[in-house]
């Protein structure tokens, strides 16, 4: 098995574990009624560790997993949202060296807030505008708490994804790890 394949499997494993934690403890982790979005956090961390391609692929996979547990929105909507977010964050990572422990929580928080907004916007485009009917206060609460949750968890999760991404082409290109020796 090649190092890139191993890296992809490790990232996929983390995504599955994140889903498992979310569906098992997500309700218990609610703060003022808002649960954290661990799959979005994993997507953003994967994008920061492996660039736009890994971010988009990881986002797509995480989104499909999330779609399995959603009833109200069309299957594929979360996949679309998270793959876009993963790509954009990865592209941003390539363009600017966000390899700072100080900046990472802020980037993760902003990306999470954008993800909520993009999700609602796309849901509206696909005829699910009811999701925003709860009102501005609820949406602001969701955005703020999800972003704060993501920022708090960002450092360990980003560290985990950096380790898991070792050997992937994106991580090598970003200088996160050395390229695997060719035979």
């Amino acid at each position, binding site marked *: 098995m090649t190092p890139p394949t191993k890296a992809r499997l490790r990232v996929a494993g983390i995504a599955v574990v994140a889903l498992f934690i979310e569906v098992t403890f997500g309700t*218990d982790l609610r703060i003022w009624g808002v649960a954290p979005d661990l799959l979005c956090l994993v997507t953003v961390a994967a994008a920061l560790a492996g*660039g736009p391609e890994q971010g988009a692929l990881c986002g797509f996979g995480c*989104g499909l997993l999330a779609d399995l547990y959603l009833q109200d929105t069309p*299957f594929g909507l979360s996949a679309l949202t998270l793959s876009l977010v993963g*790509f954009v964050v990865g592209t941003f990572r*390539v363009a600017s060296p966000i390899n700072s422990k100080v900046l990472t929580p802020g980037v993760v928080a902003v990306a999470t807030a954008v993800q909520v907004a993009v999700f609602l916007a796309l849901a509206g485009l696909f005829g699910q505008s009811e999701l925003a009917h*709860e*009102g501005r206060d609820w949406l602001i609460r969701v955005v703020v708490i999800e972003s704060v949750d993501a920022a708090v968890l960002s450092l360990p999760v980003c560290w985990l994804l950096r380790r898991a991404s070792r050997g992937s082409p994106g991580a090598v*290109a970003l200088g996160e790890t050395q390229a695997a020796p060719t035979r």
Partner: protein
Amino acid sequence: MAVYRRPNRARYVLALLVLTSITLVTLDARGGTLGTVRSDARSVFDPITHATHSALAPIGNFLSGAADYGSLKKENQRLREQVAGMQSNASATAAAQAEAAAIMAQADLPFATNLPKVDAQVVGQNPENFDVSLEIDKGTSRGVAVGDPVVTQAGLVGTVASTTANGATVRVLTDPIFTVGVSMPGGVAAEATGVGPNSPLQVSGVDPATPVKAGMILDTSGVTLETFPPGIPVGKVTSVSTDAGALHDTVSLAPLINPNQLVVVSVLIYSGQTP
């Protein structure tokens, strides 16, 4: 020095993923086989997650307590005083007694008495923030089907949104895509719509002449083609308002149940055509 040379490939990958996602959304909207895929996948995951959740409940309770520390501190103080006053030695069996009481309370529903029902335990809640649903431990093997009404003795909880062999997902009545016909005073039917997990249902388009007042309990209308039988309490009227320039009133309807505190519910086996 490593140089990143693959932006085009990343764009192609993104384009492929976007097209795939849009295709999936379209297929799902057309009512294809994706609903079955969702159901089958959850049949695999659900037993594992339910078992893990039950086994690790103390950790979950600890995390939940940590998240709600402020309110729990006050609640704790109140409960301490209450416990000291009661001097009860039945704490060891309190949880079991509460559950048994909830099951017994479900035995005789004060409405829809002619319909068969399946009592089910609430085993989980959807962790998503824009999708209000509960997980119950009875599914198609016990006759539960998509669209069946879910109730407690207090009133309507929601409707079955999806099923597996041994479980089902219940869309709670506060969900933004939930609608139910309600019977207004004077015999007029109207439609109540969920708005979100922390908001009352909204009944719009109400004739200002309708004698509806705060405090009234509104029941399901059960009119033709309605997916709920008549007579199930839906909620209590909290306010009747008229927007400036509007020709109709809007009624706010607070649910009679708290989805976060449900232990046992009843699924009414109702096809929508059952008398």
